[in-house]
């Protein structure tokens, strides 16, 4: 490996260190792009026979505008929010009838997957888990008596996790979500035009397993809560 080659990796080092130290992500990424280009001997602006870094940056950014198309949906979503979208969603969430904290977490994970598959951005720890899911889960666990402090901590972690499980995997079921579009754009840049629908298709087994694993983990949570309740009696 030549020193020249190692120099080319400086951009990756910048991204790793910059994001790990929580510097501004936009600045980190563009700095990495400039440094990588310079390290591999590209000119800033095009010269005869050599494409410049700034040109490539501009072309790469413009070619991938599709990743930011969702801005066009913001006015409608924003207006719906002003007129009570979250509140009406909460009405639906409150209708979930679950006997235990674990089952509620599992149902919420499923709800997040469905929301993701529709390409919507409804959910979140602040808007749904804290005000709705957590109190409902604790309420469900207390039907048989007081729940131990330790179990409550577990329930808190479980409801937070169910939001993440449903959100991370479910969103790839919609062909126009950011993750799918990023993969589409990056693969195109590498010379492979893939179909958005194929990307969605191969997400299905992953989502199915995420639901199964979530359900198992939440069932184990319920068992733990029951045991600790018996232990204190």
């Amino acid at each position, binding site marked *: *490996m030549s020193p020249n080659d190692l120099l080319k*990796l400086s*951009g990756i080092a910048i*991204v790793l260190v910059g994001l*790990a130290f929580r510097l*501004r*992500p*936009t600045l980190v*990424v563009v700095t990495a*792009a400039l440094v*990588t*280009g310079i390290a*591999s001997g590209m000119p800033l602006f095009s010269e005869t026979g050599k494409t410049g870094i*700034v040109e*490539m*940056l*501009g072309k*790469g*950014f*413009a070619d991938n505008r599709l*990743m*930011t198309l969702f801005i*066009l949906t*913001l006015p*409608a*979503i924003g*207006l719906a*929010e*002003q*007129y*009570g*979208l979250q*509140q*009406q969603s909460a009405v639906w969430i409150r209708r979930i009838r679950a006997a235990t904290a674990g089952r509620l977490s599992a149902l919420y994970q499923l709800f997040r997957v469905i929301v993701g598959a529709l*390409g919507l951005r*409804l959910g979140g*720890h602040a808007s749904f888990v804290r005000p709705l899911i957590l109190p409902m889960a604790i309420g469900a666990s207390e039907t048989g008596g007081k729940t131990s402090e330790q179990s409550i901590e577990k329930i808190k*972690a*479980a409801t*937070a*996790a169910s939001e*993440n*499980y449903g959100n991370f995997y479910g969103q790839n079921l*919609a*062909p126009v979500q950011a*993750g*799918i*579009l990023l*993969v589409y754009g*990056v*693969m195109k*840049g*590498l*010379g*492979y035009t893939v*179909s958005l*629908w194929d990307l969605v298709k191969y*997400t299905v087994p*992953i989502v199915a397993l995420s639901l199964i*694993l979530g359900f198992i983990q939440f069932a184990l949570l319920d068992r733990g809560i029951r045991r600790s309740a018996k232990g204190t009696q």
Partner: protein
Amino acid sequence: MIGAIFSLETIYVLTGMVLVVFAFLTLRDRTNPHRHTSALFWLILGCIFGLGGVLPNWLTGVLVLALVALDGVGRVSRGHLQTDNASQERRAHRLRNRIFAPVLTVPLVTFAFAIGYRTLGLDASRGALLGLGFGGVIAMIVAMKVTQGTARELMHAGNQLNETMGTVNILPQLLAALGVIFTAAGVGDVIAGLIQQILPDNNLFLLILANCLGMTLFTIVMGNSFAAFPVIASGVLVPLIIRPFGVNPAMAAIITLTAGSSGTLMTPMAANFNIVPAALLDLRDKYGVIKFQLPFALAIWSFHVVLLWLLAK
């Protein structure tokens, strides 16, 4: 003519126009501490969207540098959020489930376009993207009809949402541009060479293991699987797995991306998902969410390796 209307460029121009309106609203917002520079940011982004197809690449590049400079010096901010929970509650009560009509319009139109394009024998991916764009526009009309709100209210609400999300909105696009430069510089080949020195015998299973491990480790350090993907895709996935073994690129790419999600579940660097919620829910252990997610993340990660290997063989 019809071809010109139903092109991605039309959607980009519409997006550019919405961004210019956002910029104007931001400029007039006196509660925003940096309203001039913030408005400039959204105006420049709007210009790139609307004119990106005709601007010379060097000019677009300079505009991108300007965007990043404005954000880099911390001059892009948002105005004071005006949310009136009581009135939202009241309005929710009045509109009931009709409030879902505008947000459901977007996926409905997206699917309708995709199916229509497929039926006509055209590219269904393109159909979905056009559907997203036109769906957004139709949803605006539906939203105004349902809520009886004005166009001004509509754009104001959109601007508020856009400002809340902020400058990270452009991050996927920047990462894709970074990927383009990595490719041109041959960064992927260097990484591929390094891995081949460690794993010399071209064993598909070990390469898949290295691919998924690399994706997850990068995500753990950066807290962001989107940032890890261009690096792993150009350095491992394409040169060492897809190209030499003729593996289905769509399958391998999306499974690699979600292998990164295991990393997101395990890292405190993804603070929004793991640390902030722990505080929000008053967990005594601030790593409580991560500890709960750890067995899930390891199990689903192993499944990614096995699935990718089985589908690649």
